[in-house]
């Protein structure tokens, strides 16, 4: 039994189970933490929550390179997985934005469904997780899915837990699909001379071109300058090409027909993923709709952020996602942006979704909760976290919902 108020630091599944049971019996909300990368993302969790640190629950428990699958405990840093798989010419194609120096944990990556540039071609966490072990909100150890790459046995709790932000269970172990690293891995920077607003129109030409990059990220001039990939203050499209030499050479030639092209160091990807961490207190907002409409989404985001100095904006073309990183100094302008309705911009309506990934604490209250509000989601929550002890509030469910929960359980 841990002293009240002290963080739980379980190093085994049984200890996680004990912690959840203790939380239930004392009605103590838990704040679940892996590497700590995403603790300031999502809505603030109840103030009296007690921290559960999973960084002691770490280690790769199964890795047979020929199977291209790997199982690791939830607190295992992505860095450890990257090292183990690189030695075999493989990788886990999950490279989330903002994971602290790759110290982000695999459990949190899956729990938050965080992705990065490689999602352009290689999928999201929901496409990569094969199975998991979780401790649900009633303290049961549940296994979902398996370790094989194809599996339809039973209802899909793996998809349910992926992206649930730990509100349905504490993920303790994850099995993942790996990929063989491409024979050639080359990064290109394509400069776009025109106005930033129209940069995505040009980038959309990539969709039509004879190329299939592993990643394609468009950077606005501020971000391109920050990463040192523009000398002229232009927007830049980063492409990551992978495959055999003949294919990559051919794609590079094709890219050359679209814009001025330079081969650059692959380290730019790490720099891009890490850059928001060098702005403490930065807000991150993302817009998303169909990838084919990414030029429209880009224009929309760029116009919305027009009044925010130093907004760093990038688009993940294959995901149809545009993210804006707004340094703390832009908070006041950001508040205006968040209040402004998502309305017509450019030639057509933005019909997608805006999600706040990170906000300064005072701004959260003004943000509409995008999730967990519908009847089914509330029932899912009640079924898996009946006492509402798992990260309460992190999905933006309000005080009313929590009270409602407790009333219904008669606790």
């Amino acid at each position, binding site marked *: 039994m841990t002293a009240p108020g002290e963080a739980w630091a379980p190093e085994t599944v049984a200890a996680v189970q004990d912690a959840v049971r203790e939380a239930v019996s004392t009605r103590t909300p838990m704040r679940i933490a892996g590497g700590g990368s995403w603790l300031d993302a999502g809505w603030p969790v109840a103030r009296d929550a007690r921290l559960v640190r999973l960084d002691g629950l770490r280690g790769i428990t199964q890795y047979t390179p*020929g199977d291209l699958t790997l199982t690791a405990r939830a607190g295992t840093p992505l860095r450890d997985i990257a090292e183990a798989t690189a030695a075999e010419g493989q990788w886990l194609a999950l490279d989330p934005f903002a994971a602290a120096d790759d110290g982000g944990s695999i459990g949190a990556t899956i729990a938050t469904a965080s992705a990065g540039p490689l999602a352009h071609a290689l999928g999201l966490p929901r496409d990569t997780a094969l199975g998991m072990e979780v401790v649900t909100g009633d303290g*049961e150890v549940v*296994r979902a899915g398996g370790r094989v790459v194809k599996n339809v046995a039973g209802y899909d709790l793996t998809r349910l837990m992926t992206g649930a932000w730990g509100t349905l269970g504490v993920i303790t172990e994850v099995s993942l699909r790996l990929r063989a690293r491409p024979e050639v891995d080359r990064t290109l920077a394509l400069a776009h001379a025109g106005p930033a607003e129209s940069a995505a129109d040009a980038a959309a030409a990539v969709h039509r071109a004879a190329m299939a990059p592993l990643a394609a990220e468009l950077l606005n001039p501020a971000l391109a300058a920050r990463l040192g990939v523009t000398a002229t203050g232009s927007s830049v499209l980063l492409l990551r090409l992978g495959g055999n030499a003949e294919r990559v050479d051919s*794609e590079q030639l094709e890219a050359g027909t679209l814009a001025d092209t330079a081969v650059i160091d692959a380290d730019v990807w790490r720099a891009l993923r890490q850059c928001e961490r060098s702005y403490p207190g930065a807000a991150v907002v993302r817009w998303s709709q169909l990838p084919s*409409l990414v030029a429209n989404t880009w224009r929309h985001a760029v116009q919305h952020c027009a009044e925010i100095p130093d907004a760093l904006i990038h688009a993940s073309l294959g995901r*149809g996602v545009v993210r804006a990183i707004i340094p703390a100094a832009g908070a006041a302008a950001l508040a205006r942006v968040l209040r402004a309705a998502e309305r017509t911009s450019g030639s057509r309506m933005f019909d*997608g979704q805006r*999600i706040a990934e990170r906000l300064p604490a005072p701004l959260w209250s003004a943000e509409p909760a*995008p999730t967990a509000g519908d009847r089914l*989601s509330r029932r899912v929550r009640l079924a898996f976290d009946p006492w509402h002890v798992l990260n309460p509030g992190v999905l933006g469910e309000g005080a009313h919902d929590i009270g409602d929960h407790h009333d219904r359980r008669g606790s």
Partner: protein
Amino acid sequence: MEAVDDASLVRSLEAIVGPRGLLRHRSELAVYTADGLPGYRKFPSLAVFPASRAQLIDVVLALAEHDAPFVPRGAGTGLSGGALADGVVLVGLNRLRRILSLDPDNAIAVVEPGVVNAALSRAAAPFGLYYAPDPSSQAACTIGGNVAENAGGPHCLKYGVTLNHVLGVTAVLSDGEIVTLGPGASGAEPAGYDLLGAFVGSEGCFGVALDVTVKLTRSPQAVRTLLADFLSMDDAARATSAIIASGILPAALEMMDGPTIRAVEASIFAAGYPADADAVLLAEVDGLAAGLDADAGTIERICLAHGARTVRIASGPADRARLWQGRKKAFGAMGRVSSHLVVQDAVIPRTQLPSVLAQIREIAARHRVTVCNVFHAGDGNLHPNIGYNAYDADESARVERAMREIMRVCIDAGGTITGEHGVGLDKLRYMDMIFSPPSLAAQCRLREVFDPARRLNPGKVVPIHSCREWTRRPS
């Protein structure tokens, strides 16, 4: 058969779909007593066939009012007994077969659940698009059924299963509530609980799809199909592992063993496989034309290095189609060999292929049954099938014992009991072998979020005894 006697339900349903949309007589219902898996025969109490979305919603509401359990059914090509209605109402969805929209610019389509998989690809073809998941039954199976089963197919090795191609589902739940799951045509990335991910593969136990929004895939610039034949299945299995480890991700990598090859070659689906081979590998690479021949060359070299007798590359689309026809119709070809067929669908870690295939051979010999292996080697998704005569009690018992042992071997190798066919009725007895009681109870909990009364497709997927426990919760 109690529902048949429920005159009030029959009157309600008939008022919705008309007399021609309702089947009540045993002789008419006989068609609906089985799916694609021979060996089960379950009579529904009646079968109702709504002709429109509005009729389907009204049917579900009427069933709710009468507290009547029911089973949704697409084309009935499933291989797990999942769409069988045992004395309850069967709701046929095959009249809901309109493609509601096809947006080539955004490569998405919205379809009714009864749209046939191949029909969607045909409709998309003029735009250079197709629907990627390609179960072998694609000429008949429906998108609604594919969603229910999270269907796979040979090309899922590279392109992913149904889950990876569905953007949204509008579904009617058993109580008549209509819910929208997933982002749908807006294409926004999912946020919040992935209820769409949970719905796909829920085997008709969570709700009935009214429409499904799917991603379409751009047809590849080029395709190369290779056929390698081996005098030893063990060599073919090792070649498979080597291809996967090489870093090339084939669009498909399929294996057929000697008995399957001979069944195919003796049938109208003869594809020109060498009849004396112990195994053939059918490998396909696709994508950009640049570099594709180099990948095909690498696969050829790997096969030859692992003992392939010959490797040939399909000369063109017609040759390729013929090679594929043999594979896709292999289950059908086995119909010539025996009256009944047990179809297994286990998945194993890919490095275990040689060892597991050898153990399957040993089990088959010991129980004096003939196993035909035809499977998705690249995924490790086995289909060890046994042809038999269900009216021969001794043979049936031997087949059952052999199958149970084969499943045990696959699970012990780190595998699972079904990769793409679903649990349905047929794999229900194996669920306890891979999931603990709390894990099964958690699945029940999810099901009851969608269908608290458990009226939808009752008795499938999770053994009923697992669902009783979880309601006993601490307080």
